[in-house]
């Protein structure tokens, strides 16, 4: 299938960032329609669309919206997770920079559907351009009466505030994000069923809807054109509807964001990004650093869809798709992945805090040529001891890439341990490696 630009249709047009330009292309029509509808009808439309969370977990969006109490006893909060931090992903960045009104309109629609009082958009601290763009759009929306008091004559008041992070991958996890927004260290909290869902007790213990930037950005289209229309997109897949933005990077000729209908193949995505650069395809990490790595054969068979991707051996994740060419040393790549998680582990849960560091130490030992034959088994053991044993998904996400690489590319690890050096010795491959590796060549 070719690229299908729905959310990103006008992304290249600077005028689209302004409220006038956005309105010209049908902007805020979704909200205008939503406020004429019954709140439950808006949620039903989202249900019909089959929209699932675009942040990585793929949870049905309507269930979150529907989970907010209907008889209001407390303030309701609408929270946008714009703490995009997954290595390889930069779709929310483009949406916020180039399509800020789309995100804001989606949040206001969610606010209407759930009787929201205030919305917060938590943007990672590094994304200053995104924050500026969103702030400008919020100011414009207030001036036009889409935010503030008595929105579009409905008598309903709703505000949106920008809140910036300060450098922490962990804050992209929803409970850690809420901790951070409430002025604490960005550490996760106990989750359902051991603690209430955010829809019951989220921000300041009040009902809270929390969705990813891309998820909110889908809502205006669903309301404007109907959930049934939206569900026709991606209908060839089992249970994935609509479009998904994939951020393609690594060894490709035209890295960038490509929006595709579910049902597109990974190879079609690679073609959109101009094909491989600097060598043949060796591996692909299709959904951000947390998802299992695929080898060439697996990549060639993979179809984009939440269930389809699991069948192919990986996950849709956040859509951060990295293609690796033949000169990439998988052991070094996995060491760098493990290092990321060791640095970003918040330190709350012992299996993740200690386990991620152990994995780095063992992988470093292998890279130094001092790997032991038992190390593969030891690494595998550690991944099992981390997976499912932490409060949040960061621990699982740290274990999966290592476990998958050991499964998919065992020969690379065996070679490294057996020979004390990487299986990759091409000049292109060595050029990627850290200095410490080059010193040993």
């Amino acid at each position, binding site marked *: 299938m070719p690229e299908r630009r729905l959310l990103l249709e006008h992304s290249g047009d600077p005028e689209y960032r302004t409220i006038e330009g956005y309105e010209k292309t049908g902007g805020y029509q979704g909200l205008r329609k939503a406020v004429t509808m019954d709140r439950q009808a808006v949620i039903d439309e989202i249900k019909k669309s089959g929209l699932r969370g675009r942040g990585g977990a793929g949870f049905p969006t309507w269930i979150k919206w529907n989970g907010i109490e209907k008889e209001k006893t407390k*303030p309701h909060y609408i929270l946008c997770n714009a703490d995009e*931090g*997954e*290595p*390889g*992903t*930069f779709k*929310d*960045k483009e949406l916020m920079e180039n399509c800020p009104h789309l995100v804001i309109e989606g949040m206001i629609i969610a606010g209407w559907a759930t009787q929201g009082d205030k919305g917060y958009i938590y943007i*990672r*601290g*590094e994304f*200053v351009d995104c*924050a*500026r763009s*969103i*702030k400008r759009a*919020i*100011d414009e929306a*207030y001036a036009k009466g889409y935010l503030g008091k008595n929105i579009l004559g409905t008598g309903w008041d709703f505000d949106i*505030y*920008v*809140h*910036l*992070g*300060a*450098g*922490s*991958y962990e804050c992209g996890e929803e409970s850690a994000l809420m901790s*951070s*927004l*409430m*002025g*604490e*260290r*960005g550490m996760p909290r106990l989750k359902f069923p051991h603690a209430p869902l955010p829809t019951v007790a989220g921000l*300041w213990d009040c009902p809270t809807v929390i969705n990813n930037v891309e998820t909110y950005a889908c809502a205006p289209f669903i309301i404007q054109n109907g959930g049934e229309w939206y569900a026709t997109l991606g209908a060839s897949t089992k249970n994935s509807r609509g479009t998904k933005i994939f951020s*393609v*990077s*690594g*060894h490709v000729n035209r*890295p960038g964001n490509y929006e595709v209908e579910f049902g597109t193949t990974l190879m079609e995505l690679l073609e959109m990004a101009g094909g491989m650069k600097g060598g043949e395809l060796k591996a692909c*990490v299709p959904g951000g650093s947390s998802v299992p790595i695929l080898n060439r054969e697996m990549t060639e068979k993979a179809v984009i869809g939440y269930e389809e991707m699991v069948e192919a051996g990986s996950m849709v994740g956040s859509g*951060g798709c*990295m293609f690796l060419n033949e000169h*990439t040393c998988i052991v070094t*790549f996995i060491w*760098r*992945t493990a*290092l*990321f998680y*060791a*640095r970003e582990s*918040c330190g709350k849960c012992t299996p993740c805090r200690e386990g991620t560091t152990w994995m*780095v130490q063992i992988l*470093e030992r292998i890279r130094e040529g001092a790997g032991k034959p038992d190390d593969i088994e030891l690494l595998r053991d550690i991944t099992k001891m981390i997976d499912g044993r932490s409060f949040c998904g960061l621990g699982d996400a740290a274990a999966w890439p290592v476990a998958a690489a050991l499964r998919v590319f065992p020969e690379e690890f065996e070679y490294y341990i057996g020979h004390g050096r990487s299986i990759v010795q091409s000049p292109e491959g060595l*050029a*990627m490696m*850290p*200095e410490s590796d080059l010193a040993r060549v």
Partner: protein
Amino acid sequence: MDTIPVSNLKDRPRPPKPEEVELRFSERAVKELEQLLTHYPDKKSAMLPALWIAQREYGGWLPPEAIAEVAVRLQRSYAEVEGVATFYTMYHVGHPIGRHLIEVCTCLSCYLCGAYRIADYLKEKLGVDWGETTPDGMFTLEEVECLDACDRAPLLQVGDQYIGPVTREDVDALIERLRAEESPTTIRLADEIVQAQLHASDQEKVRG
């Protein structure tokens, strides 16, 4: 393993006693914080924005006095504020940094696209290692994790700007440009972050 940075606690000066705290926020900063506090139902939730204001007011980093001032203004303990500030990598707690912080992403896509060679070049050119500042106080070099602009790998962040993809020549030009820069980009970053969180109506009130 020497690659995971640990906090330099031993170098951190003793926290000031409450009676020693001298409030140094400018009039503008006080008004900004006042507006930001209206965004949240409690004072504690303004912790991150308040630390950003403090980082700007105290010259791009957070000395113990800055932590103490935030604690006083938000009516929290020193320990709590320091605990929050040290969690986040963009707050520079207890040790000053250069006028320009050059952050090099070496995470996955950047590493695939040659970030380690750019890092080597920067270290050699500036004569510093990760986490170090040039003797003239101009540049601090830091390694960062994914900045999420992987289409522009290899990528650098300086202040509020992303720069990439970069070559050695781009690095030369950047260093030249930064040397001529009048205001520290570290302070500009903090200010931009504060401004982005204020509505136009808030900013009017700050201006008075």
